[in-house]
């Protein structure tokens, strides 16, 4: 029971070569991020190691890594300074890979947290109805009423200064846990609303009434009857959630409230690079392309998953509302 629709979806997904290729692309990007220390060995310097006065050998000549008027060297296409240096003489390729760790980790962790919270809120609100639903919906409405980026920036700025300690949760100032929490909370309504709607519809179905009639407890009904039927929706929304979380993380870092420099993330690398587009365009282009590739990979793969699970329409929200 419940097996065959999944198997069917899997078979459909396996035939969707484009979706699979882009899914694989994301996996490759994630593996590259994991392999960052290996590349740092090849390049001979860590992500935050500066080298403002050093020189390197280019075709037998010694060239300044950062010229006297502050222009960093461009891509060398070899181990050291593969993608060139930044204004402090740091290795852009190494920072790109370490930045991938931060960007992808924050994106994936935030999306997981959003999924968890949204499923919980959607299930409880939809199942219990009445005042539980009213409270949940008001809370979602309030978050929804904030412009996404503005709320993210406000929370990020406030938390970045002082951190936050609520019971066992300790968000230290300047840690990436802050970005994860902020992004997760901001996106909860976008996922909780469709889930709640689906629970409302499922609740009236015969199999739920049957489970209740057999004496299944509320928890058991939610976990055993409703959750398995919500799974396709969750599976469809999750990759898109990761894509949006990665984009929002980059936007927050770009506005200066995400990953704290000198630690790299694609967003703060773009932020630093935009100021130097004229003299050193590689600084903004490289992290931007990585960002676009990873988000595009997730979006195309997510699209394939949705096709495979036959969930066209309904979830008309896949784009980030900027």
């Amino acid at each position, binding site marked *: 029971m419940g097996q065959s629709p999944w198997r069917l979806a899997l078979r459909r997904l396996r035939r969707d070569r484009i979706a699979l290729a882009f899914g694989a692309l994301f996996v490759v990007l994630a593996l590259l991020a994991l392999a960052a220390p290996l590349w740092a060995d090849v390049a001979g310097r860590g992500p935050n190691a500066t080298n403002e006065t050093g020189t390197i050998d280019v075709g037998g000549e010694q060239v300044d890594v950062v010229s006297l008027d502050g222009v960093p060297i461009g891509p060398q296409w070899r181990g050291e300074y593969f993608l060139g240096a930044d204004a402090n003489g740091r290795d852009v390729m190494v920072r790109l890979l370490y930045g991938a760790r931060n960007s992808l980790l924050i994106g994936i962790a935030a999306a997981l947290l959003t999924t968890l919270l949204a499923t919980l809120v959607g299930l409880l609100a939809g199942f219990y109805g009445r005042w539980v639903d009213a409270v949940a919906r008001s809370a979602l409405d309030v978050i929804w009423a904030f412009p996404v980026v503005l709320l993210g920036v406000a929370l990020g700025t406030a938390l970045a200064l002082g951190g936050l300690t609520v019971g066992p949760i300790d968000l230290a100032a300047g840690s990436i846990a802050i970005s994860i929490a902020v992004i997760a909370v901001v996106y909860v309504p976008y996922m909780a609303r469709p889930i709640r709607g689906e629970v409302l519809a499922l609740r009236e179905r015969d199999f739920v009434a049957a489970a209740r009639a057999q004496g299944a407890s509320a928890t058991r009904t939610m976990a055993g009857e409703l959750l398995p039927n919500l799974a396709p929706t969750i599976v469809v929304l999750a990759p898109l959630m990761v*894509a949006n979380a990665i984009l929002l993380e980059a936007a927050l870092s770009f506005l200066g409230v995400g990953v704290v420099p000198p630690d790299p993330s694609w967003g703060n690398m773009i932020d630093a690079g935009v100021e130097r587009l004229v003299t050193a365009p590689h600084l903004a282009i490289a992290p931007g392309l990585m960002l676009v590739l990873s988000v595009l990979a997730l979006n195309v793969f997510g699209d394939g998953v949705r096709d495979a699970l036959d969930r066209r329409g309904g979830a008309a929200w896949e784009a980030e509302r900027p």
Partner: protein
Amino acid sequence: MTRFVAGRLGQMVVVLFAVSVLTFLIFNVIPNGDPASRMAGKSPTETQVEAIRAEWGFDEPLPVQYLRTMEQVLGGQAISYFTQLNVRDEILRGLPRTLALAVGAAILWMAFGIALGLLGALRAGRLSDRLLTFAALAGVSLPVFWLGAILSHFLGYEWGLFPNGGYVPFAEDPLDWAYHLVLPCATLAVLFTGFYSRLVRSNVLDTMGEDFVRTARAKGLSERRVLLAHVLRNSLIPVVTLWGLDFGAVVAGGAILTETVFDIQGVGQYAAESVGQLDVPPVLAVTLFGAFFIVVLNTAVDIAYALLDPRIRVGER
């Protein structure tokens, strides 16, 4: 129906109140967030900080501070902690810029969204449809701030086709005004075009399967007429609704990144800069202004739908 509308309006007020309290709290309960010590500048004496605290009323209980701040914000009397400028004047100065950007972008994304979506639906399943779908996904995947910076650098700075950011008031030079808006509007529209073309495509495909379309064909209408008068018209209803909501969201702060990258100096950029300085009055004012737009438009849509579909107002109660 009256009860439904009254309930919705009540809910709207409650949500706006909660938004204002939450925004106020975000900036006032955080550690190290004491505005007085930040306003006093570098290495202030304790007496200076105390003086500022008393002058601005930061020593009063939070609820009192909240009420006073809200009174100032709603009465247009709020003053920025740092620039000492009137917040309402600043918002009114930025509003035409944000509106110009939002209107231009909205027209672009709707026009291209419909055109590309329709094209995709007509060629459904073929190579051109797949390419369009891919292009739409690519558009949705482009970070606005990066795209904006790259476009403004290459098209603006390198090739000199467009101005390199900035804004020229309409009254000063209408042509230059439009010229300066082309790139920002296009940048902001790319993301939405990707989203809307996919929405239009799937709605058109759904509508094509409806009985009334078959009827229209059966009575001998030309394919073109079936498409424009029956299919497109019906599939655009939800799209237009969403268009209104998205336009509101863009005005309400959705253009922060675009404005910052192109230095439009609109409401969004004002908010972003104020947040960075923990400048509570402007942030509170802009957030409320934005939330107001979003909540009012959402409520309007809910009420309109309830008017059209009685099931909603029964179910929602």
